[in-house]
């Protein structure tokens, strides 16, 4: 029965394809291979989501060794949902990647982009699917190392410094996670998530476990770019190749947020992580600062890619606020925003990819008048921007709506007000781009519209933005189920 092996295949297929890319080396062939593998992963992830939604969680014993000792892959609705996001984003972006990567990366290195891409995909899917905390660390390293490579392959030399910065911060994060896992292992003698969840309550009041928890939270927050730990993100996003930025924006931070959820609600209990350690308060404050300060910083950026990068940090703030509320509605808002933010940011970065392809620049001043020359690209950007702001009939609205509902459930009118007010800041920075592109005249007279292979994936995501914004029943029902499951302990 192949369906019993799907959890393993989810990770193994991209893992096998990555070295195959190094062996093949031919640019177009590696792209085709990566594309094929990514779509297979997407299909597997969708199957897993449907299976777990209707039949309950699945477990896979790697190497035939039973769970607490061996490595277990545990799939439930929460991580199946994240698997779908990651593999879906990768599949759609890869369609456009060929043209865009060939344009921005030296031809001798294009196969390295796809190798790194597949390894990164392997790592991200692995982090998500595994039920073993040490395995999380291993996959985290696979994903991180390959994403440093991907960033460093960016079109100009500043990509190298950006990648180095990312490497230093990422390594600190990974080390903290490893220390945290080590401390937990010392106290409980187990690495299996379900097993940890049972054993931690007995030793929860020791300083060691608290220290372990602190290390884990800091490490994962660094990877997730939670507000004061976001330092690496703007440069990495700005200088990476456009397709890579779109992929990372839609997947890497999402997986880290998922890890936070898993650790907070499943491994440590909600009472321990949010009430005893007071993370509800800390995360709420950080989240609120993030949505305001980062949106303000975004307004003052002259590079549009960097602007969207800062906006990503702000959006992580919304997810963190959702988590800190720790109610079904709050978590639903956080989880559904994982999906929705992936859709909108990915679409926006792909639209920027189209602009880079034609103009070789994403500086605001170079975009003057581009709205007339590249109507489809800019229309996509505008709709993506509306979604980012949270206009009704887009996915952004759904996220904000649930977040506001969650705030109102606790009678926190001020929070609801702040969520709405910060959206207005998004209006300002999106408007700056729209104004320049449509209402200014500039030296882009002979620019053509981007090629179809870049436009189609962008528009697929834009249509998805509207589709899931109008009929959000599916995403909300998955997210609600995931939230319920996280709040009910093992």
């Amino acid at each position, binding site marked *: 029965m192949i369906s019993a092996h799907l959890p393993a*295949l989810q990770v193994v297929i991209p*893992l096998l394809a990555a070295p*195959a890319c190094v062996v093949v*080396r031919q640019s177009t062939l590696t792209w085709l291979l990566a594309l094929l593998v990514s779509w297979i992963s997407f299909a597997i992830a969708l199957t897993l989501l449907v299976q777990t939604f209707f039949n309950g969680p699945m477990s*896979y014993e790697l*190497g*035939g060794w039973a769970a607490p000792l061996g490595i277990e892959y545990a799939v439930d609705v929460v991580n199946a949902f994240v698997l779908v996001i990651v593999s879906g984003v990768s599949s759609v972006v890869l369609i456009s990647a060929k043209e865009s990567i060939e344009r921005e990366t*030296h031809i001798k290195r294009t196969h390295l982009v796809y190798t790194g891409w597949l390894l990164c995909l392997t790592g991200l899917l692995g982090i998500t699917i595994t039920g073993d905390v040490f395995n999380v660390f291993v996959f985290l390293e696979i994903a991180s190392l390959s994403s440093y490579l991907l960033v460093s392959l960016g079109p100009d030399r500043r990509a190298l410094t950006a990648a180095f910065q990312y490497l230093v911060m990422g390594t600190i994060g990974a080390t903290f996670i490893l220390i945290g896992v080590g401390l937990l292992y010392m106290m409980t003698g187990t690495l299996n998530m379900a097993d940890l969840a049972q054993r931690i309550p007995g030793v929860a009041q020791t300083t060691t476990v608290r220290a372990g928890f602190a290390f884990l939270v800091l490490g994962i927050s660094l990877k997730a770019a939670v507000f004061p730990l976001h330092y690496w993100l703007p440069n990495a996003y700005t200088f990476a190749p456009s397709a890579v930025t779109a992929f990372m924006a839609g997947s890497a931070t999402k997986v880290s947020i998922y890890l936070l959820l898993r650790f907070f609600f499943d491994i440590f209990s909600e009472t321990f992580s949010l009430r005893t350690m007071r993370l509800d308060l800390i995360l709420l404050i950080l989240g609120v600062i993030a949505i305001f300060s980062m949106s303000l910083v975004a307004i003052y950026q002259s590079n549009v890619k960097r602007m969207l990068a800062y906006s990503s940090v702000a959006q992580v703030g919304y997810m963190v606020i959702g988590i800190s509320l720790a109610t079904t509605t709050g978590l639903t808002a956080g989880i559904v925003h994982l999906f929705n933010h992936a859709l909108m940011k990915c679409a926006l970065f792909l639209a920027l990819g189209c602009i880079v392809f034609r103009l070789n620049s994403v500086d605001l001043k170079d975009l003057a008048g581009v709205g007339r020359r590249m109507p489809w690209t800019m229309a996509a950007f505008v709709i993506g921007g509306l979604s980012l702001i949270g206009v009704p009939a887009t996915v952004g609205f759904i996220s904000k709506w649930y977040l506001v509902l969650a705030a109102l459930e606790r009678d926190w009118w001020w929070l609801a007000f702040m969520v709405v007010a910060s959206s207005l800041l998004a209006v300002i920075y999106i408007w700056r781009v729209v104004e320049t592109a449509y209402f200014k005249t500039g030296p882009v007279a002979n620019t053509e519209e981007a090629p179809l292979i870049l436009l189609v994936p962008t528009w697929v995501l834009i249509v998805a933005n509207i589709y899931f914004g109008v009929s959000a029943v599916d995403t909300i029902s998955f997210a609600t189920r995931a939230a319920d499951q996280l709040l009910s302990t093992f």
Partner: protein
Amino acid sequence: MEHHIVLRVVAKLLIPVILLFALYVQFHGDYGPGGGFQAGVIFGAGLILYALIFGLQTIKKVVTPSFVHYMSGVGLLLYAGVGVISLFKGGNYLDYSFLSADPVHGQHLGILLIELGVGITVAFVMVSLFYAFAGYRQADLKVPPDTGHEATEKARDAVLEREPQ
């Protein structure tokens, strides 16, 4: 390197032993200390020692950079491939017991093969790291920045193509 006669003679004597020892560590890993990672490092170190004594160009004639990249992929493919074979034979991923009719023999074969995969990848990744750093001064310092424009592209190609002096 003409006058480092002692180094050259000792290296020539030692390198075959180092490589042989790497293979011993590799295949005796089931019964004694050792295994793929250690063996790979020793093997890679042997090749790097050769490059240090006799020069980068000499070793690149035998162990070409493209071969190095190729092999570092092959090792991982071997590792992951063993897992897939056990899948096809009806077991879970990487369940070696299914590799052979006799589960104990299967476990032996499995660990031997995946450790070989680890060894190959580690050895050649070591060498490729060494190539990258050793070749840096000669090749990369004069490479014009990769701006994506056609003119600089040609200049870059010219430098990247050129063999180090």
